[in-house]
């Protein structure tokens, strides 16, 4: 059924496949070959993306044994337990705060870096490399380094602050500071990738636009507002979406820096899922939480497309 429908759509694009008129294609048609080329992807997607998606959905309605196999159907019970658990509410709150702390900051900083690094200067390649370097640094390595930086006694951060007379902040163990500290690490970690993409976006802007603006005597800020940002908006749009999704999926920093603590201050959603599933073996509730995460990300993407696209200038 579905195939039939798309076939008509295809007709507009590639009439050569119009089967009715194609004795040629019926004989040595390209379909068998196509499926051969797509088979590896299809099998892998089926096994590792689509099947698990439905399985997770199923699990979220069941109690399960320690091997992760569903046992008793409990309807929405897992969801009810989840939504009424203070731990989940705390973790949802932390996650939202975390997104709020990290995403705008990362993008604004990366944009500033990209604008600076887009100047045509001698040796600019060196600075670009430095600015993008955190992309090559793994979550584990950077977390360990920041763990050291945040160390209350030996870490450089408190050493520096003590010069200013501020002492004794327990960055990762203080519920007031822990999420901030994790956010700082994350911003630093994501800056490289975001910078790289934004720089690419800036370099794709047609030089002539600037030349023309220069001839007309427009100032730097005017050019930034009227040319750069509008022309960059597709890239910004992409970067915002990717950063938000990334933030929702944060795990490594938490595992290495705080283990979700103190209290549940940094128990971000994926870490909370990990604990439920692989520490407490409560696969049912973990799956319910996964589905909630999935819906959140879907919603973000949908909202981005609905509202983001209108403001975006596409070339």
């Amino acid at each position: 059924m579905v195939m039939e429908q798309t076939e008509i759509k295809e007709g507009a694009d590639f009439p050569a496949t119009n089967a009715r008129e194609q004795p040629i294609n019926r004989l040595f048609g390209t379909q068998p070959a196509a499926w051969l080329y797509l088979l590896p992807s299809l099998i892998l997607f089926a096994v590792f993306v689509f099947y698990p998606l439905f399985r997770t959905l199923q699990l979220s309605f069941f109690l399960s044994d320690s091997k992760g196999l569903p046992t008793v159907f409990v309807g929405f019970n897992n969801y009810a337990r989840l939504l009424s658990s203070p731990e989940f509410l705390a973790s949802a709150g932390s996650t939202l705060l975390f997104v709020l702390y990290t995403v705008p900051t990362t993008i604004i900083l990366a944009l500033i870096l990209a604008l600076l690094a887009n100047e045509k200067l001698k040796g600019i390649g060196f600075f670009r490399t430095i600015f993008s370097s955190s992309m090559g640094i793994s979550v584990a390595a950077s977390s360990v380094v920041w763990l050291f930086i945040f160390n209350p006694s030996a870490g450089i951060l408190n050493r520096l602050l003590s010069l200013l007379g501020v002492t004794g902040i327990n960055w990762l163990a203080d519920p007031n500071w822990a999420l901030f500290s994790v956010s700082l690490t994350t911003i630093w970690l994501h800056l490289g990738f975001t910078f790289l993409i934004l720089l690419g976006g800036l370099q794709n802007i047609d030089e002539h636009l600037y030349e023309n603006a220069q001839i007309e005597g427009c100032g730097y800020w005017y050019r930034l507002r009227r040319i750069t940002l509008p022309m960059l908006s597709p890239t910004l749009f992409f970067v915002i979406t990717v950063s938000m999704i990334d933030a929702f999926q944060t795990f490594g920093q938490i595992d290495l820096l705080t283990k979700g603590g103190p209290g549940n201050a940094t128990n971000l959603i994926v870490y909370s899922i990990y604990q439920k599933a692989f520490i407490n073996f409560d696969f049912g509730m973990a799956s319910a939480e996964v589905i909630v995460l999935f819906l959140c990300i879907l919603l973000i993407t949908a909202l981005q497309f609905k509202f983001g696209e209108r403001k975006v200038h596409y070339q």
Partner: protein
Amino acid sequence: MKRIKLISLYTVLTILSLILFFPMLYALSASFMSAQEVLLGHFFPHQLHPENYLEAFRDVPLLRFLFNSIIISLIVTFGVLIVSGMAAYAFVFLHFRGRRLLFILFISTMMIPWETSMIPNFVTVQHLGWINRYAGLTVPFFASAFGTFLLRQYFKTIPEEMWEAAQISGIGHFRFFVKVVLPVSRTSLVTLGIYTFLTTWNTYLWPLLTTTDERVRPLQIGLRQLQSQETVNDWGVVMAAALIVVVPTLIVLFIGQKHLQQGLTDGALK
């Protein structure tokens, strides 16, 4: 006037570079400090203490982890290039029924966060006996919607006439794919390769779940292991290990930075 602008620009760039690279410089410096010196809170080691590196290799099988990470990242990189290269080829050069629908299906997998499938995938990998196997660490990542999308964007720039010319001279799809499409798209393959290598090298959660054994464990989890072993403030050793983890990817990134930037922007926006 122009000079002042230039000097201030360089100053700003330098300061920003120092701030951004500070954590790594600090780690580098600490990796050469003895435990006492670390506790004193020096920024520069007063006495070079390279033993930390030897210590790191002694504490955990760091070489083994390094080897595992390289193998895993290479396998995933080539797996992704082959699998998504083939899919992208089908989407561009094979006109089959339901092509558009299938492409939407592919793209939609980008919207499904990987965590969604984490629990069942763990069970699947367990059933396949792939826990503590390279297979379990690599095969689930072979199919890449992003990779397919990126390569498709590039393949689409190859004129249809090239395939037609090949058809007329009796060259089949496979030969055309291998001898024309892949060589012509070398740059985008390199981009995707670098990207995949970096992300695989840096994966954390999945190897944490599927390796309980030091024989296949990658560096990232090795680092976690080392960090949890080094309880008493031997930060120098941990920093040394962190640098060992970081150096290979930084090299890859420094070499491929230009490629990556161009390729990713094109892939994201065209």
